[in-house]
Structures are given as structure tokens and as C-alpha cells.
């Protein structure tokens, strides 16, 4: 039900926000049907302007290409997210109260989120207030200023956030999957970070300054203005307020992940009553808008593991031994596993469910997808995209997801052309390439009352 779905969405971060490619283009023309422009300022700042066709409102989305992926140093996990919080601590010109006042006067809904690959600050407000907010936001990105006391106080809000998520078993499953599946790459930790690192955050004031200095730079940032406004005027304001921002020179060295050499598995206990969870995953490629593999895997995720799949019908509707079955393959900048999650009603059925999922992966390698099923998935993606773009906010949310991957709306059109081009043969080839035992990780989670030993 809605609660269940929401809890699941929360656990998977941005998967449902536009994650695993929920979309594809009409045969004629581009899937992203809005008038848009993109520019790069001399300082490296990416600028994207989109006319949403909806009146009155404007969304300003600032996409910083920094996420938990950039947390390469030991003991500093969770920092990109902490920094998202710090960005609300103001500047000399606009201390937090003043910032609030301006946003309030614009009737704005404001917030921010951090994922593996990006940190996004967003505001949706009355179109007439665009200049003021562009000016104030430019100041925030260039002149953020806070004391050590404020920094320490904010780290406790982050700990509060960590604690509020603690009750969600999908979070724990995600943590276990990452730690088991990855050896070197920073996707090994979640965006919240390791608990010990979150606890130690109050002592990291100096590192916080360094983090801002490295990453909050124009070459790491793309800003998008979406809605009801004049492009030329907005571009002028952006040049005026964001142009003086100084380019940096830091380059993060994200460790590559060595090829996995054999199957892995892990079992974790959960502290509160929950149904058992199992996730079967395989090492898979990064998001791409030119090479077909990741797009083909998206199609597989719907065809073989979505609500309309044979497996769903068998396990959820007919046998009723599973109450939730869902693919888990969010778009990422670097290679990320392709997973399937099942929540099993009875512990004794976990093995059986696991075997059914594994058999489905095998079947994808042996048998081509029927033509009508392939067409149904493509149609689903196309209509799903159209149905999702129902407001300025929704368009901007989807756009921000893709800007985090490629910095231009054109990647959406390219990605959807790829979806259209996927053949049954490509799907089978992709399945054979990635669904191999040596790249597999099986993650299981079960309730274990305190004091009982895990098995």
C-alpha cells in the first residue's frame, strides 16, 4: 500500500524520482518536448533554461556534481550530505533568517537532497521573484559562511536524520549490499555514511571548509531554471550574479572497482519485526546514453521483474509467497549493480524465492524476449514519461536527475532513442554479459530479536 511503497522508495533513494529510466520518446521527435537552451559560462558553470509551458511558477535547481561517490577519504563518509545541510547556514549578506525571508516572500518551496552522484538544491516559487533568488543563491554558493559552533550543531541534525532512517529495513539491506558488493569504489558506503563517521562529524569543521573549497565551484555545478520566464533575461542575470564565481582546480580521484572474481553473499539481522528481504544483484554498467547496455538492463528490469512480469504473477499474485518484488537499478555515473529485491512472507520460503529469481536470470540468457512484450515495455516507458511531466516541479525534478548524469537535457533524448533501438537480441546479449555468477551478490535480511544469535 502507499506506506509500503513510500518506505521502499525512501530506501532506494532516488530510484523512483526518475531513477531507473522510467521513460522513452515518441517516434517522431524528442521525448523531452520543451523549448530549452544550455550554455557554459567562462568559469565552467553549466546553465540550462527550460520553458515548461506551465504558468506562474519557476523552479531553480542547482545540481552540484558531488555526492557520496566523492567521499574518497577514510572517516569522511556522509560528508556530501552533511554539506548539503551546511549550505543552509547562510552568508554575511544573507544570514539564514534573511534567506528565509526572501524565500518566504516568494512563496517558495525549498529543499535539497544528496545522492551517490550529486547534491541538488531546489526551489519552486513565483516567477516574478526569479532575479532576487538568482542573486541570493549565487551569493550562497560563493560566500557561504558559518562558525564552528554552527557546524557542530548541524552535525546533530544529521545524526537525527540518520536515526530517523534507522527503522527502515530497506536501508539496512542497501548498506549490506554495498559493503558486500564493492571493495574499492566509494559506492561501498551509502549517502548517509557509516555510523561511526556520522557520530564523529562534530570534530570535522576543518575538513568541511576544505570540502566547500574543493567542490562548491562552478565547474562542478549545473544550474537549471525551469518554468515560466524569459530566457534572455534569465541568462543575463545568471551571467551577472554567477559569472564572478571562481573556478577551482581540484579533481577527485574516485577509485575504480576491480572486477569481481566470484559470487558473494551476506546475511544481516534486523532489530525489529520485519518480513525477510532478499536481494540478488549482479555487477552492471554505469548510465550511458550511447552504449546500449544500461538501457537494455532498464528494459529487462520492467520485463522480467516489474509488476507485469511472469515472476511477479507467479510469486505475488498466484503463490502469494512474496508481497513485494521490484528491480533496483538506479542510474549512476559509475558502474552499479543490477538488483532484484523480494520481500518474502515466510522465512522458510526465502530459499525458494531466491531460486525462482535466479531461474529468471538464467531464462533471460536462454530465451529471447517475445516481440509483443518488448513493445509493451517500450510503450510503458514512453507513456510513463509523458504522464510524469505534469508540472513545472515534476519536469525540473526529472531534468535534475539527468543533469546529474550528463549536464544536458539532450541526454534524455539520447537515452530514449537508445530505449527505442533495443532489440530482443541485444537484451539476450546483455543478459549473458552481466548475469554471471562471478559478478553476483546475494543479500539477505531477517528479523532477529535481541539476544538471539544470527545464523
Amino acid at each position, binding site marked *: *500500500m502507499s506506506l509500503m511503497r513510500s518506505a521502499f522508495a525512501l530506501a532506494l533513494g532516488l530510484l523512483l524520482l526518475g531513477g531507473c529510466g522510467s521513460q522513452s520518446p515518441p517516434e517522431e521527435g524528442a521525448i523531452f518536448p520543451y523549448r530549452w537552451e544550455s550554455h557554459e559560462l567562462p568559469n565552467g558553470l553549466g546553465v540550462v533554461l527550460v520553458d515548461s509551458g506551465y504558468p506562474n511558477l519557476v523552479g531553480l535547481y542547482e545540481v552540484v556534481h558531488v555526492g557520496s561517490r566523492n567521499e574518497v577519504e577514510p572517516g569522511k563518509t556522509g560528508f556530501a550530505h552533511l554539506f548539503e545541510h551546511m549550505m543552509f547556514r547562510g552568508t554575511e549578506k544573507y544570514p539564514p533568517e534573511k534567506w528565509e525571508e526572501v524565500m518566504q516572500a516568494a*512563496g517558495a518551496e525549498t529543499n535539497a537532497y544528496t545522492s551517490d552522484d550529486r547534491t541538488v538544491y531546489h526551489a519552486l516559487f513565483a516567477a516574478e521573484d526569479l532575479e532576487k533568488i538568482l542573486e541570493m543563491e549565487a551569493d550562497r554558493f560563493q560566500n557561504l559562511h558559518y562558525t564552528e559552533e554552527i557546524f557542530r550543531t548541524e*552535525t546533530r541534525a544529521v545524526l537525527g536524520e540518520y536515526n530517523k532512517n534507522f527503522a527502515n529495513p530497506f536501508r539496512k539491506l542497501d548498506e549490506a549490499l554495498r559493503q558486500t558488493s564493492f571493495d574499492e569504489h566509494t559506492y561501498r558506503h551509502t549517502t548517509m555514511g557509516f555510523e561511526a563517521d556520522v557520530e564523529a562529524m562534530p570534530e570535522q569543521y576543518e575538513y568541511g571548509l576544505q570540502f566547500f573549497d574543493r567542490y562548491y565551484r562552478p565547474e562542478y555545478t549545473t544550474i537549471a531554471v525551469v518554468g515560466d520566464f524569459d530566457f534572455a533575461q534569465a541568462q543575463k542575470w545568471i551571467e551577472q550574479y554567477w559569472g564572478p564565481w571562481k573556478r577551482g582546480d581540484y579533481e577527485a580521484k574516485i577509485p575504480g572497482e576491480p572486477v569481481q572474481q566470484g559470487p558473494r553473499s551476506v546475511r544481516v539481522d534486523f532489530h525489529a519485526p520485519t518480513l525477510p528481504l532478499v536481494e540478488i544483484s549482479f555487477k552492471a554498467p554505469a548510465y550511458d546514453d550511447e552504449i546500449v547496455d544500461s538501457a537494455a538492463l532498464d528494459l529487462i528490469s520492467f520485463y522480467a521483474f516489474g509488476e507485469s512480469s511472469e515472476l511477479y504473477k507467479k510469486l505475488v499474485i498466484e503463490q502469494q509467497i512474496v508481497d513485494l518484488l521490484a528491480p533496483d537499478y538506479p542510474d549512476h555515473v559509475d558502474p552499479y549493480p543490477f538488483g532484484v529485491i523480494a520481500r518474502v512472507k515466510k522465512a522458510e520460503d526465502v530459499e525458494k524465492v531466491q531460486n525462482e529469481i535466479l531461474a529468471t536470470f538464467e531464462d533471460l540468457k536462454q530465451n529471447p524476449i517475445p516481440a509483443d512484450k518488448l513493445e509493451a515495455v517500450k510503450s510503458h516507458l514512453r507513456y510513463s514519461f509523458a*504522464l510524469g511531466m*505534469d508540472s513545472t516541479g515534476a519536469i525540473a525534478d526529472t531534468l535534475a536527475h539527468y543533469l546529474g548524469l550528463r549536464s544536458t537535457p539532450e541526454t534524455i533524448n539520447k537515452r530514449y532513442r537508445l530505449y527505442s533501438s533495443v532489440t530482443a537480441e541485444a537484451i539476450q546479449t546483455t543478459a549473458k554479459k552481466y548475469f554471471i555468477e562471478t559478478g553476483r551478490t546475494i543479500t539477505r535480511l531477517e528479523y532477529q530479536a535481541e539476544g538471539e544469535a544470527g545464523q
Partner: protein
Amino acid sequence: MKIATLATLAALAAATASAQTVQTLALPGDSPLVSFRILFNTGAASDPAGKEGAAALTAAMLSRGGSAEKTYDQIIEAMFPMATSVGAQVDKEMTVFTGETHRDNLDAYYAILRGMLLEPGWRPEDFQRLKDEQLNGLRLELRSSNEEELGKELLQTEIYGPKHPYGHPDIGTGSGIESLTLDDVKAFYAANYRRGNVTVALAGGYPQEFLDKVAADFAVLPEGAPSAVEIPAPARVKKLNVRIVQKETRSTLISLGFPIDVNRAKPDWPALKVAQSYFGQHRSSKGRLFQRIRAIRGMNYGDYAYIEYFPHGMFQFQPDPNLGRQRQIFEMWIRPVTPENGLFALKLALFELHGLVEQGLSEEDFDSTKLFLSKFVNLLTQTQTLELGYALDSKYYGLPPFNGWFKEKLAGLTTEQVNEAIRKHLRSTDLNVVVITADAQGFAKALRSGAAAKPVYASPPPADVLEEDKAVAAYKLELGSVEIVPADKVFE
């Protein structure tokens, strides 16, 4: 003569019945999308005693079970290429089915939707699946994995009490759901899904004749409407009534509130809405509570206030429409704090509420909140389906279209009216508190001891805040009942 009269009366009755047309609400437009909201004025307040959860399971059988013509998996398969589905939301007095399709697929989608709502399949296997899901939704999702929602839902039932029609969660109770049979659900449908309590609402690019056709189709529902459920005002509790839920958790969660005699239809609603927005605008850093508890003191992730029911607040920024109720509560949501700050956070929340009641809003706060709301209101109806939902709610409350109405009311408000509404409807005593924490006994003991509560900080806040902390720590709690309940007994 007598017979003739009876015949005449019978004929008249028949004419009335066939003349009872289905109510419609139309927002035609040129969007390629068509939004449906099929609203029934019924819900969990109509659950029969001992069958709590009947309304929710009935709606689930319609929206996520098969129709007479198609099994559920056939429905999924047919919907998949269109990327459509049917959603259901059940609250106390409203049950709404929602759907959206591209107009390319309007007829195909509607044919399925109509079958689901008007000719349900009532298959035992669907019933078993959905009943399991509902039980797990209550016991494992709500109670075990979502402490914040649990606290908020428990506050509602604490305020109304078990015998009140609002006295159980919309999803039902453990024993209520367990006792439900397929016949119970069919009976609920027969009694509560009627021609007289349905409104068919459509928005977007549909042809005019389509709306007429839908209205005619829904006229197959039996005439009449279910008898109205009386929703009495809950009794005013004395002092602070604290329910502590003992649960394996690493933090302490607090919800508190009391019933208010104000819903959207009442004259004081716009004024109270301004007060609520100022005090605790949902998921916004601008609210007073957020500023004092999170921003300045870093005690938790956020702190908000409400005058209308707002479920699933941790997952969304805006409320869903079609949660219309005759009665509402004033609620404060204090997000998880570390256990050592639990008692202090409760005192701080009440201290702030006391301050609001005593001092109200300044002219400046009033002006800025009014300006904010007058623009923010456009965000509430950003999409076609939200606009349709708000239109249905305005109809329920007997109001003009929401945005225009609210802006007009805002324009006419004064600071004094807002502060008058605060004094009249809000209070900082005689209320219910729900606390979820691992050391329930310890919390109860600290509460009863009347000891001052000392906050623990990562970094001391400014001197004026530390000074205020002394007053907060000394803030006296007038205790009524303090009771502990283990988490697995909640909503059974």
C-alpha cells in the same frame, strides 16, 4: 383511493430513483492527459465495530484486485503498456480512486477502471493477498518500520478514543483486519458505494460526451446513500495525557495535540492556517518550531505543526487532497531526538506552544506569512489531478474553488483576527502526548519526577538560547495520565 395513492407514491419514488443522477465535477482542458478522481463519501468512520479495516480492504479489492471480467494479473498486463494504474486512498469520510491516462488510451483505460469499480471480481485469492498485505502494512510497515507515522497515527486515536468513529487508523486494527471475511467486504461495498454518495471528477483533454458516458455508467450503482455517520466532538482531556510506546529504537519521538473545532468550512480556518504556517509549516525551515528546535539547537531533523490530517508527511512536501473531515486536530510533530534530550524536547515543544498562545504573531510575522501563503497556494494545485482533488474538497466543504477563495480570505485577514483565532482554538494544556522510546519506564519516571530537563548539545548554542533553556527546563508539566504500552500492542 388508498391503493391509487400508494401506486402514485410508488411511481413517484421510482421516478426519483431513476432521476437520482450521479454528481460530476469537470475541469476540462487541453492537456493530453486525462485525470480521474472517483470520490465516495464513505471511509474508515463507517467501519463496522470489530471490523476495523473494512473500508480500506474494500477499496483495495477494487483498486488492486480483479474485476468480473479480468483477473488482477490481466488488469496489470493490460495497463502496463499504457503506464497506468488505479490508486485508492481511504480516509475517515472519503474514499477516492485516482487514475491518469494519456488520451491516446482513454477508452481502453476507462473500460478497465469501470469494470474494477462497478463490477468487482471478489475473488478469494485477491482477498487473501490483500488482507495479508493490509495486516503486514499495519503490523510490519506502520508499527515496526515507521516510528514517525506510528506516533502520528497513535496521536489521532488517543485523542478520539476507541469508541469514536475516528478512533482507529484508516488501515484498521490487527484484530479488525483478521476478522474480515470476503462477505464483510462485499457487504461494505453494497452499503457504502451508492449513487447518492459518489462524485465522478475528470480533468484534462477528454471529450464532453465522455463525461456524460462515465456519469451514466456510474448510475448503475444502487440508489441512495449510506446513512450519515455522526462524528461527535471528542471530550476535552484534563492536563497532559501521555502515552509512551516502548519500542526498540535509538531515538525518542514526540507527537502531541488536541481536537479543534475548526475545519476548512469554518470561518476561523484561514486565520488558523496562517498561525499554523507561521508556527510549523510542513517540511519548511521557515517555521518557528523548526527554527527554535532544529536550526538553533540542532536537536533533530525537523519540527512542524498541522491543523488538518496530513499522513505520510515524511515522504512528501505537500498534503494529498481528498482527506476531508468534519473534525480535525491541532498537531505538533517533533522528529526523533536523542533519548537524553527527550524530556527537554517535549518541554521545549510545549514552551513554544505556550508562547504562541500567549503572544500570537507579531505584525511582521503575520505580513510575511500572509505573503508566503498567498504565493505558495499555487504550488498546492500544481498538477491537474491536484487541482481536481482540491475542487472536490471545496465541494465537500461547501466552498468556492480553493486557490481564489483562500487568497481572498488571506487578503482580508488582520493580525488581530489570527491572534484571536489562536486564543480561541489553541492551548498548551489539556492535550494528548505520544512518545515512542526504548526506555519507556525511564521516560515516565523522569516525567513524573518533575525534575528539570537539561539539554545535551554537540556545541553550546548562543547565550540567549542557553538562558532560554533554563526557562524551558523549569517549564512545569501538569500531568494527567502517564501510561506505557509495548509497541506490539498498539492498534491490535
